[in-house]
């Protein structure tokens, strides 16, 4: 059985004979402009169908909603006033004060003159993506082996193997992977054939219906040494792609830089290999608490507790046998 929790190199743990450097994303939300080019590039490259009803969701500029079977990059928009910004600065400062792990000696606190004025208003924009966890809940619980760990340490679904059991959907602590259904809302003709005047909205055929789908970190591009579509298209380099180790180092430098500018609200998400999923392949720099962005504040891969669950289930099964034996003892009273 592979390692179920704690720090590890996931590709080596999956027993790849030729382990490549672990690849990942570093999404620096402090320079995201919310252009959604990553969403579009992802959809185009991966031939992901439209999902949803093209409706306005009433959540700022976010009309995508959430990551899902056909949405592998999702840009979150959060509007905040001064009070929320101050709270974010405080919660970030509290993280520093906790003595959370950081690289190098702590820098001296900025002088009051260096601290930027708190703005009246800010937009938080963050491009969310599959975390490609070190210990991936989806991968662990997949019964068919459709989900697998690549040599780059990422997690990919084989659409031709998946039978759509849906266990991975519940197994993901981040709510990323989803079973694709024909979510296109445009009415179609009954026999599926386009007829003049009947078909509303030209819809290409939806691939991989009924199977689990999620970000592959552009596995098909990776094996040709190409950059994933979202990172390639990102105009501000908010989405960075590269070797995981380099990206974590870069992320730590960037957060230290922001802290030195007095922006204590900056923090990293997923850069700690001691966390509940063994660290994530996609690391984020956030400017507020993770739940503000729809991210879980303390995710834990459920499989970490699986040996204990099996033991207790075994005990319960033993109890059931004991109850049955007890019931048959004493003959036909």
């Amino acid at each position, binding site marked *: 059985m592979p390692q179920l929790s704690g720090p590890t190199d996931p590709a080596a743990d999956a027993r790849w004979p030729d382990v490549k450097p672990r690849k990942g994303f570093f999404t620096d939300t402090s320079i995201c402009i919310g252009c959604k080019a990553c969403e579009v590039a992802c959809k185009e490259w991966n031939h992901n169908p439209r999902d949803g009803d093209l409706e306005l969701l009433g959540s700022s500029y976010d009309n995508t909603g959430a990551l899902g079977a056909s949405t592998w990059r999702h840009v979150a928009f959060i509007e905040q006033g001064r009070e929320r910004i101050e709270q974010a600065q405080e919660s970030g400062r509290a993280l520093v004060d906790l003595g959370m792990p950081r690289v190098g000696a702590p820098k001296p606190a900025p002088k009051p003159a260096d601290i930027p004025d708190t703005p009246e208003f800010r937009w938080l924009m963050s491009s969310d993506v599959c975390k490609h966890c070190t210990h991936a809940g989806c991968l662990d619980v997949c*019964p068919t082996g459709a989900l697998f760990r690549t040599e780059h340490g990422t997690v990919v679904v084989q659409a031709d193997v*998946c039978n759509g*059991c849906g*266990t991975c*959907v519940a197994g993901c602590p981040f709510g990323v992977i989803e079973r694709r259904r024909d979510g296109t809302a445009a009415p179609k003709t009954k026999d599926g054939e386009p007829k003049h005047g009947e078909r509303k909205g030209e819809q290409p055929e939806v691939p991989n219906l009924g*199977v689990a789908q999620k970000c592959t970190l552009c596995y098909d591009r990776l094996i040709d040494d190409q950059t994933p579509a979202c990172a390639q298209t990102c105009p501000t380099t908010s989405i960075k792609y590269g070797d995981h180790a380099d990206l974590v180092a870069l992320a730590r430098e960037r957060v230290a830089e922001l802290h030195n500018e007095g922006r204590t609200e900056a923090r990293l998400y997923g850069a700690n290999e001691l966390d509940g999923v063994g660290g994530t392949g996609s690391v984020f720099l*956030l400017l507020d608490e993770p739940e503000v962005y729809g991210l879980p504040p303390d995710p834990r891969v459920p499989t970490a507790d699986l040996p204990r669950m099996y033991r207790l289930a075994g005990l319960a099964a033993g109890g059931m046998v004991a*109850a049955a034996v007890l019931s048959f003892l004493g003959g*036909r009273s």
Partner: protein
Amino acid sequence: MTTSEYDSLRPPEPAGGRRRRDGRRRRRTGQAGADGSREMPMVPEAEFTSYYGRPVVKPAPWGHDIAAYLFLGGVAGGSALLAAGGQLTGQDTLRRNCRLAAISAVGVGAAALVHDLGRPERFLNMLRTIKLTSPMSVGSWILSAFSAGAGVAAAAEFDRMTGERLPLGPLRPVLHAVEGLAGLEAAAFAPPLAAYTAVLLADTATPTWNAARDELPFVFVSSASLAAAGLAMITTPVAETAPARKLAVLGVIGDLVATEVMRRRMDPVAAEPLHEGRSGALLRLSEALAVAGGIGTLLGGRRRGVAATAGLALVAASALTRLGIFEAGIHSAKDPRYTIEPQKRRLAARRAAGITDDSITTAG
């Protein structure tokens, strides 16, 4: 001052300035912003404990097929145990009825499982590998092994009931030679069949299921026992149901105790769906039926009519338990509160205990 005709579509600036927790009014200069002179939030300010109230985790895309399977798998497992007991103690009617119950329940349950797949035609992919980290994989193998034994044992019963009319030819003696072994093989896989579904639910990020991980197997095997015993009390004359009645009472006691312990030890927020709403109502009804069925079994289990009624109550109780727990989990995944609040609490508790190195959020 209007600068554009579209300004009339702008929502009004909240009266008295934007809400502030500490009660202080924001110092404002000039216009409030509703005239478009500066940026203002277009979304009402929320308590940002979540992202627009949207779920953090996704619920399993499972319909009531899966809830039915949880129930039927339990009935099958319990029935195979009772059949094996009947086989070993020479209670032939009990053995026959329970073998037939086991194969019927597991057959319908497996069909429900396949029906719920996104790609039902690929159901055999479940057996493409053995993966211990996947309760679904382990369970598929348990289900297959169980069905093999239960199928052979039930085929032998069916052959006997129809006066050896199955077109078996020279294989008939083989069938009747191995039926005993097959019945015992099914019984060996029966408790795992009843228990693994608890691990299947608990090994997810679904808050209520995951928080119940320590006690759920005990709830499920108890529920399976009382359901199978109840079914035997319906199908089998009282002369041979003494073991079923004992198992029913043990099952009811186990079910009540395990459920109560589960509710108390779980995170209080994650446990809420077990008390409230539709799932809470289902579980309360289930508990009432289990108690009624248990008392009926104890007091009137030797009378055929009372035994059958009590048995029906027990079967219904088990079905409602599974449905209630299934729905509680799905509900807990759809509301971000059940994910975020317990996680924030456990993170704060670890920090208070001095463990500050295992948070996913770090300052550097």
